[in-house]
């Protein structure tokens, strides 16, 4: 019997769904599973009993909590798909809307982080799920696979002034760490597994894969307290809350 899958969307840009649809293994995936609820593809409007529920998007309205709870009660496994569902996501930057990870309201069985999740990681995770295995995510940080790490030069430049290099050019032959040029890269506090797509493209990491440990903001503060951040950057929320906002901060707003 094919495993039943449910794919639901809360507050999101649907980028994660788009990534699923564009996966090279998507056809194989369709053949091997039974989709019971997936508004993008099938007409079913009621939430059905399922083996695995993938939930995309963060919780920003009260009624979404009811949907979540219903899904939880009808699913054997609930997986947070993408950074919004896992940590809150880009909506964390909003001061008006709430952006809570789904784990704040229901128990979850795993996350597939990334904004959107890197195709390779997502594909592997889907296969693991339909074979009823546990998800395995890399437990180290992005530096482990960083193409710019080079000679393991640990000395960062003290002063960090910029968020981006002046010119972004994929063909630019960057040979060393962004941090050494005074450009902020959040690779050290970000989970590995995205194959450093941004860095390959000439952009420093913004941390969309989320933390390995408990809390992204804490890790970022710990990390940046070791460097000298320019005055403007010290107060720039986009660094600290771009993809997640600690509960305490949400309470304050």
């Amino acid at each position, binding site marked *: 019997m094919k495993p039943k899958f449910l794919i639901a969307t809360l507050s999101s840009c649907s980028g994660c769904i788009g990534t699923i649809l564009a996966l090279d293994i998507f056809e194989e995936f369709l053949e091997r599973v039974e989709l019971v609820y997936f508004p993008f593809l099938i007409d079913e409007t009621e939430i059905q009993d399922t083996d695995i529920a993938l939930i995309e998007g963060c919780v920003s309205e009260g009624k979404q909590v009811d949907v979540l709870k219903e899904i939880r009660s009808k699913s054997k496994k609930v997986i947070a798909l993408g950074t919004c569902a896992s940590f809150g996501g880009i909506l964390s930057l909003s001061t008006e809307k709430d952006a809570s990870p789904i784990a704040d309201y229901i128990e979850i069985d795993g996350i597939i982080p990334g904004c959107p999740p890197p195709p390779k990681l997502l594909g592997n995770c889907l296969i693991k799920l339909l074979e009823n295995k546990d998800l395995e995510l890399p437990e180290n940080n992005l530096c482990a696979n960083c193409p710019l790490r080079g000679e393991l030069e640990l000395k960062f430049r003290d002063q960090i002034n910029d968020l981006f290099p002046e010119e972004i050019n994929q063909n630019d032959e960057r040979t060393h760490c962004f941090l050494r040029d005074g450009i902020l890269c959040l690779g050290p506090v970000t989970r590995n597994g995205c194959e450093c797509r941004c860095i390959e493209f000439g952009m420093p990491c913004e941390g969309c894969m989320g933390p390995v440990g408990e809390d992204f903001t804490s890790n970022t503060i710990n990390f940046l*307290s070791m460097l000298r951040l320019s005055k403007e950057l010290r107060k720039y929320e986009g660094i600290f809350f771009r993809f997640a906002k600690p509960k305490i901060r949400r309470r304050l707003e």
Partner: protein
Amino acid sequence: MFSIICKIYLKEHGEEGGLLDIYGILAHPLRQKILEILDKEGYVSYSDLMDKLGLETTGQLNFHLKKLENLISKDKKSYYLTEDGKRIIQIMELNRRVLAGEDLESLEMRKSEINRVGVIICDCNTEISSVIEIAALNNYVKKIPSVVSVKIFDTLCQEKNLKKIADWCKDNFLNKIVIAACSPKSHRVIFERIFEGVIDHPNIEIANIREQCCWVHHAYPRDALKKAQILIEAAVERVKMQKAVQVKRVEVRKSVAILGGGIAGMTLALNLARAGIKVYLIEKSPTLGGKVARWSKIYRMGDCSICFLSELIGELVKEENITIYTNTEIENVSGEVGNFTLNLIKKPRFVDVTKCTGCKQCTYLCQIEKSNQYEFNLTNRKLIYIPFTQAYPYAAVIDEEDIDTCRQCRICERACSNAAINLDQKPEKIQIKVGAKVLAVGTNLFSELKRYNYNPQKDIIISPEFERMLSADGPTEGNIVKLSNGEPPISIGIIQDVGASQYLSKFGDFVALKYLDAINEKLPFCKVDIFYPLSKLKEKDEFLLNPMDKRVHYVKELEIKEINGQKFVIADGKKYPTDLIILNINVVPNKDLKELRKVLDFTLNDIGFMSEETLASGVYGAGSVLGALDYSSTVASANNVALQIISLLSHEYLRAESSGIEITHEKCGLCGLCAMACPYNAIVIESDKVIVDKFKCKGCGTCASICPTKAIEMNIDSTEQILKTIETLSKFKPMRDPATNAPSPKIIAFCCQSCGYAAADECGLKKIPYNPNIFIVQVPCTGRVDTLFILRAFELGFDGVMVIGCKRESCRYLDGVEKVKRKISLIRDIFGSFARNRLKRASLSAVEGNKFAEIVNDFYVELEEEIKNEA
């Protein structure tokens, strides 16, 4: 099962007692019930016993009581269990568990995986029970999950029957212990000794319910009880998460490195060498002797100082156990108490000491002069020189800074008949291994003398220069003269305590008295006036200059002026003509201390001398690194340190502290943050792996607080454990003030073990009360405080967070306080006014108990206001 019971019982009684028919005694259910009642109630009267058993006739009870005669006893009123009786109860409990299906043997085997926590509540001789009800505490603790057994002691630290405790652990298959008692700072070692060989040290957790609960919350007994319950629960949760830790055993090296070849270093070296300890005496300058070698006399010691100093050097040189390295500096240190490795650099002297005969031919040949630092720049010397006549080693030397000039000339090199001079000598690396290290580098002299018109050529000199003048081998051959014209002065003015007032000491007074004697002897008709600024007197705890003495003037205002070629000391408006003015300068902390601190692992006190309470082990201070000491105090401190070192090194092995860090390589992405954060450079990345030098690591945990993936973790006080502690403490619900019914703020304070936690203990010892809503979490260093701890505390409902660490220069782990400061300032920038008002950082020294109470209480009041405003 029988066999277990027999075994346990026989253990207690030996063969004879074992013959007691316990099976017969326990055969009747009524008798078992009697024992159970007595166990539960303690003391029960005969009639109560009848009631509880539901018996109607006394005969039946009498019969059973007689049967139980070895297990129970009776005082005037009531029956109670004897020691044997209590033991039988334990066996019955064991029996019950076996019957209930618990597999005792596998319990023994799986000990390491499961948590069987035993809690000891120590009443500390009623110190606890006078504030909170122990029975209520016991009831609460019993119900904490994983707590198997609770035992109450009157005074655990005085407990003699250690076997009883060991048996309690074994019978209950305990593998972890929580001791609810006094501070771990004072008693941890004693408690560890009680459980030696029974429970591993990391598996012993202490809930500080005395200093940090009962002694400070006696005004709120109900809150104190709740707090004690929560503190114990947090300790249980922590110990449950404790993983096995490997214990290092360090072989003790019977050798000592002494930095500084002054009077303190030399005295100490001689003491240690004669006790059979190998000594490395390391001196930065080219000669032994230190400052005392340049003084004329020691106050009231008669003999000239260099005379007995050279005798001391003579003794030192004879001692086989002493190796002397002059011109040598320390580069780095690794290892731990009992076994340090020191890397030294012997700077080039450019003269081979073994070949130089000290003929001084080279010094006559040399054409270039510079001022002689050994005469405090009063005279000049050649570039190649012998520091002074009694210098050791007695050989020529060229300062490293002059070598480029010398290499252009090389006349001395060619002329030396012994071929001792080698201007191309290279620095030499030396590695030594020692069991302890001593700092005896002495002090510096106060040097900001501009406002005193200091000018030796105009006869305003400083005390060391006067010392040289008094010295028979000095520039004036022991004559007191005016350097301006070489004539003896008619009047001398001595100005006391020149320099910053934080360095005042009675040392300066001795010096003045010494000068009075010397001047009186050499120039009996010379008028001497001693001026002491009254403003400084206020801050001096002791003064030795007699105010009745006509020569001593305690004055408010002091000025040095020259009018028509005559110098005057103008004191409170009165003019004192003086030919020679001596500025009696203070000694100030050695400027090298700040750098040495990073290498040698010691702390500085508030005014910059080495702290006598340096918390690292294996490092000692002798002589005036500890403060401005006179000769006899210096020698006394050296002798004192000698005793400490001899006793330390008398052990064959030391158990190394097991706290340290562990690495999970799968989680490590080699970002290198840990290596950046480590204050001791103990972390390096080698061949794609983070490697910790366990000998350099001191266990501050700064790396663990920084690591984004927690690949690097502490094996004691892990992040998990601290988070769990915060969570448990957050369950505390304080009483509301019945008058206002306003919520009272809850505060969590992360305190470093060296200072913040110690200050809280000190506050307890002084019984200075503070609000029970203030909870203390111990961290090894404030650098250990992860932003996550702070944010999580707020999330879990704490209204205020404090981080209390050492003062800047006395930070036990060099710069942990600085690191946490940067974290907090970033948190404040990001979280704005919320964090500014509710997150506080403070620095205390370990003795500032009253200040601890003050700052936490102030913070409490601030938060009360804040909460009110918010509502």
